[in-house]
């Protein structure tokens, strides 16, 4: 096994206006540090992929971005959104999550009807107009490319859908709230290739309106859909650049070994 140098990194600063940025983000689970000084800028209306082996800290990093780690870990450092450090106690975390929405690795629709899955959060925010709700359900299901498949069974339980459909429903559920940023944690890892392709197509269509940050195991997937890619290794972000550059001209040895499959 080769020993790698972790102090050597290649992090680019995208010139595009950032939608979100982290400054020296560190995460601790008890005494164990899971993430070291992660500083990244995510350009607006672009897809950024976070790649790396299991346990490299990429999911941990992603979950910090909308404060999903609040209860399980200690998160230090700054997360800048609209010139505000949202990693502070006094920040309204619910507001953060409304703007920065998350789709999880395993599809987790609510045990409610398809319609209710989407309308639920809207109603909680005070939208009760039936016509408006119906419109939002339709547009977000269309945006997630699910409308045609489910439009006749909106009152069926969401749990009866296939895994791929459930995952797209989860995406639609986020979209209905019109967030700014969409975080996806390996959304396709539990799905078959056809469902995966559909999800990728959905994401590609969404990139014009949303800033998307996606964690993935699958390097082909990253190279297919992402504009920017960051490589995580053992809690360190070693390389971050435009996807094409990262895959064709990696500057760091670890990255090169990882993407060429020579890892370890």
């Amino acid at each position, binding site marked *: 096994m080769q020993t790698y140098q972790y102090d050597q990194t290649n992090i680019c600063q995208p010139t595009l206006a950032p939608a979100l940025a982290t400054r020296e983000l560190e995460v601790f689970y008890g005494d164990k540090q899971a993430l070291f000084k992660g500083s990244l800028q995510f350009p607006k209306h672009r897809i950024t992929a976070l790649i790396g082996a299991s346990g490299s800290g990429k999911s941990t990093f992603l979950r910090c971005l909308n404060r999903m780690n609040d209860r399980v870990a200690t998160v230090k450092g700054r997360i800048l959104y*609209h010139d*505000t450090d949202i990693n502070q106690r006094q920040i*309204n975390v619910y*507001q953060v999550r409304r703007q920065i929405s998350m789709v999880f690795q395993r599809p987790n629709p609510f045990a409610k009807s398809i319609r209710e899955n989407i309308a639920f959060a809207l109603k909680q925010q005070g939208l009760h107009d039936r016509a408006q709700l119906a419109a939002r359900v339709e547009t977000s299901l269309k945006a997630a490319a699910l409308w045609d498949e489910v439009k006749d069974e909106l009152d069926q339980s969401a749990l009866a859908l296939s895994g791929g459909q459930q995952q797209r429903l989860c995406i639609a559920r986020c979209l209905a709230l019109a967030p700014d940023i969409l975080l996806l944690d390996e959304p396709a890892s539990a799905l078959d290739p056809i469902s995966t392709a559909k999800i990728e197509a959905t994401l590609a269509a969404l990139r014009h309106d949303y800033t998307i940050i996606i964690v993935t195991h699958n390097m082909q997937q990253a190279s297919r859909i992402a504009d920017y890619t960051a490589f995580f290794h053992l809690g360190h972000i070693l390389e971050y650049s435009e996807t094409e550059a990262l895959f064709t001209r990696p500057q760091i040895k670890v990255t090169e070994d990882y993407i060429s499959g020579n890892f370890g």
Partner: protein
Amino acid sequence: MDRMKQNLHQASKASYQDYFGKSISLFCASLVGMLVVAILYFVMTRGLATFTQNHISLRSFLLGQTWNPTQIGANGQPEVGALPMIVTSLAVTLLAALLATPFAVGVALFVTEIAPRRGGQLLQPMIELLVGIPSVVYGFIGLSALVPLMRHLFGGTGFGILTGTLVLFVMVLPTITSLASDSLRAVPLDYHSAALALGATRWQMLYKVVLRAALPGILTAVIFGMARAFGEALAVQMVIGNAVLMPKGWLTPTSTLTSQLTTGIGNTTLGTLPNNVLWSLALILLVMSLFFNSLVRFIGRRGRMQK
């Protein structure tokens, strides 16, 4: 832009909701805690009065074997030896739990794993029915059916630890069964499939994977069952003979802490020694269940670590 910044800093409806939810649930929890503290304090002050006001030595209370609170013994102190009751209470509780656990786990496995349809829909509600039968009914059925049976089978009077254990066995069965099946149901289905995929037989899967995973839950079920057995009075009182004597065998009349407590409490005057010692019995009960509780928790933690 500014609006967004403001929103991020301002509390929203959701913040208030959460504040509300957290406070109300904390309020409930602390109220429940306070209730527990109140009743514990109550039992403790009364139970300790035996030692602080009546100056009974703890030793003679815990190790003495004669129980006769209204009479003065040879040493000039009232005779309040609780040892026979402590021994009997421990014996019937442990025996009932030991006896009931395999049956309860067996039924729980049947209900959750082997025949969830038939078992879950018919057997479990039936067993839960047992909880609702008043203890006095258990007592009288025990008295009119079990005691003669025991007398017939083993001689003696038919009253004693064995009969008490059997009655308690039936009484704790539903508690242990339903809590154990709850914890078995909570074992993720993936575990089952993973074990079966590795070629395990159903029993290996159940024993090595499912039961192992549900162990802490099953142990809690047993604690709750023992707790019920500990606290049960009316039924045991009728079949155990209710004589404060050291148990000399399976079927000699003896008495548990609770049965003596229930018998005596209406016939004594508050604030006097015969009444205070009854509260001391309740205190022993508390301390004992606390001990069991910690013990089972400790075992549970060890079991989980080894997994």
